């Protein structure tokens, strides 16, 4: 799982093709949270939030990471940026394993990798003006000293669709959508090449969602950004992403180009996800696949394939073998032992 071939533009209306060069290579990423219990607070178990996750992203690509709540997608996104320290695995950025870097070494890499958060209300320090918030990035890395800074902040604000005079205001004076734009401006302030967008539109009203998604798309094209777009809404992801990674209970289930995933899913979980997405055409009758049972606990995931307890195609072997991520078509990978379904 080390190379990604060039991929055709996905279902989104992207014009800029990917260059084929790998920017980010995640290998066997693992994040376990220890659970303490008992009289002396010993470690009695682990929440296996991210378990043996591997994928790569090429320069200029927009890759979607989808899964339901508890799938580990947010944890994975933050672990890649080392906002949460991974408990295992490697993250190669431009060939360097950033998990091994010291804090000082990491700081230079931080300029290249930024994050946009989900909650527009918690992601901005309420005590700082917009200028302070965006300017902090420049302050930390000593960019644009003096008057240049104000100019640059103004430029960034305009780029995200706000006005320069907004820089003197405080976050509580803006709406949710506007605050997300501020967050985007902050992320762009250091000229990163890679951005993790952690459910950037999930907390916004639907009408605003479209605006922000379009903004992200425009920015990505203009600046040639590489984006990992985390979401739980397949429709949004399909629109903007070239490829999509599907996660469940801390593991990768399927990776495929967007259109291909939509038309030709190879994993039972993806099939169920797609069937649950509403289609705005009342004449289309679909067979809804309702998954039985609840999500298992990530403390004690099912043996073998973690999805088997809710999979309608499960067989005995599914409990014994942890399925590897296999390439079943060019650029299309699935983690399932069965080839006779879908």
């Amino acid at each position, binding site marked *: 799982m080390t190379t990604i071939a060039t991929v055709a533009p996905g279902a989104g209306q992207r014009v800029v093709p990917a260059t084929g060069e790998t920017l980010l290579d995640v290998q066997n990423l693992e994040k376990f949270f220890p659970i303490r219990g008992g009289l002396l607070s010993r470690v009695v178990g682990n929440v296996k939030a991210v378990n043996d996750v591997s994928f790569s992203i090429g320069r200029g690509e927009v890759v979607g990471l989808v899964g339901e709540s508890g799938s580990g997608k947010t944890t994975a996104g933050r672990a890649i940026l080392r906002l949460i320290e991974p408990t295992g695995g490697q993250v190669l950025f431009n060939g360097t394993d950033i998990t091994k870097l010291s804090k000082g070494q990491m700081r230079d890499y931080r300029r290249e990798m930024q994050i946009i958060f989900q909650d527009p209300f918690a*992601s901005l320090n309420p005590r700082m003006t917009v200028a302070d918030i965006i300017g902090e990035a420049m302050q930390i890395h000593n960019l644009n000293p003096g008057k240049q800074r104000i100019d640059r902040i103004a430029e960034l604000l305009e780029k995200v669709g706000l006005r320069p005079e907004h820089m003197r205001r405080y976050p509580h004076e803006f709406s949710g959508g506007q605050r997300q734009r501020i967050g985007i401006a902050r992320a762009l302030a250091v000229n990163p090449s890679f951005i993790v967008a952690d459910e950037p539109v999930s907390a916004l009203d639907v009408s605003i969602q479209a605006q922000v998604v379009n903004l992200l798309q425009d920015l990505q094209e203009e600046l040639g950004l590489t984006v990992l777009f985390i979401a739980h809404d397949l429709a949004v992801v399909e629109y903007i992403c070239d490829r999509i990674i599907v996660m469940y209970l801390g593991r990768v289930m399927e990776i495929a180009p967007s259109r291909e995933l939509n038309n030709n899913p190879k994993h039972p979980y993806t099939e169920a996800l797609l069937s649950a997405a509403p289609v705005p055409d009342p004449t289309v009758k679909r067979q809804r696949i309702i998954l039985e049972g609840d999500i298992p606990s990530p403390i004690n995931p099912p043996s073998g394939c973690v999805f088997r307890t809710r999979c309608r195609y499960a067989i005995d072997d599914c409990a014994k073998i942890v399925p590897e991520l296999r390439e079943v078509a060019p650029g299309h990978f699935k983690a399932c032992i069965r080839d006779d379904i879908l």
Partner: protein
Amino acid sequence: MTTTVPTPVRKPRSQSQWSIVWSQFKRNPLARVGLGLLGLLYLMAILAGFLAPYGLTEYSTTDRISWAPPTPIHWRDAQGHFGPYVNGIRRDIDMETFRDKYVEDTSVTCPVKFFQTHPGMEGRTYRFLGFIPTSLKLFSVDAPCKLYLWGSDSYGRDQFSRVMYGSQISLSIGIIASVLTVILGLIMGGIAGYFRGLTDTLIMRMVEVLSAIPELFLLITLRALFPLNADPILVFYIVIGILAVIGWGGLARIVRGQILSSREQDYVQAATALGASDTRIIAKHLLPNTATYIIIFLSLAIPGFILSESGLSFIGIGIVEPYASWGSLLKVAQDGGFESLDARPWTLIPGVFIVLAVLAWQFVGDGLRDAFDPRRRR
């Protein structure tokens, strides 16, 4: 058709959080009362030397007038002139109790004089604002009369003057001890919350142990550390130190809790993602968010310390002679025994001041708490 020139719209000034809090505070009537009262009390403390007709320890060794009642002030003299004056004091024997009693000697009259300086009287010289020596008094009388607005104590010292000077100690100890407590609590709580692990456990265990001993007994025990007859000024600092030692735990817990919850906030993560150093995160993102709690803590701690100091002085292990605090002045009422309360009820007056100061701070504190709470916006 006329073209109208659009009237320039005044853009509303961006409101920082602090200005919102201040305007909310101003709208609270009780808070305003509290603030006004505090202003008066602290003004009184600053002007203590000016307001007090006598010095803190001024009494006559030759003509001691112990336990004189408050001197009545007369306004219209025998000739019909209008102006405040007092009569002289004469000692008499009370026929019922066979004890000394002081009555007015109407043969002697002394006018009350305003804005007099008293050169040469060292006891009445004070340092205004700490460095300007002067003996200017708002009002006073010349010898041989005495102006005991609130009576005299067993040495013959004017209680009114002592209450004025007492305000300096009572009101300042509260603030100094609080500032010390805040510094201690911030450092300890900040370290515990940011670095977690063993440091956190140690510090929190310390807080727990300190709070396991009931406050009064801890105060007494700590006071036992130092000789009871230590230098009075040293005692002043000892009291402040003791108060800070028992107080920092509460704030440390609050600061720690705040930091523990703040550091998980997205905007702190964002700062980390940007590459901010630990120092920057603590200073710019974590500590300012504790500011609210620190302010509220201060407004609760100050009256608490005023009460604690009064209590300590009241039972004799706080401020000692020759200095006075409202608590130690109240001790005079207690020491005389129950009958003295009836004979000299004015000895209770310092207590009124304690109540006023504490109530004023409580109003201000409640007002601040409400002003910070977005749910109680007026």
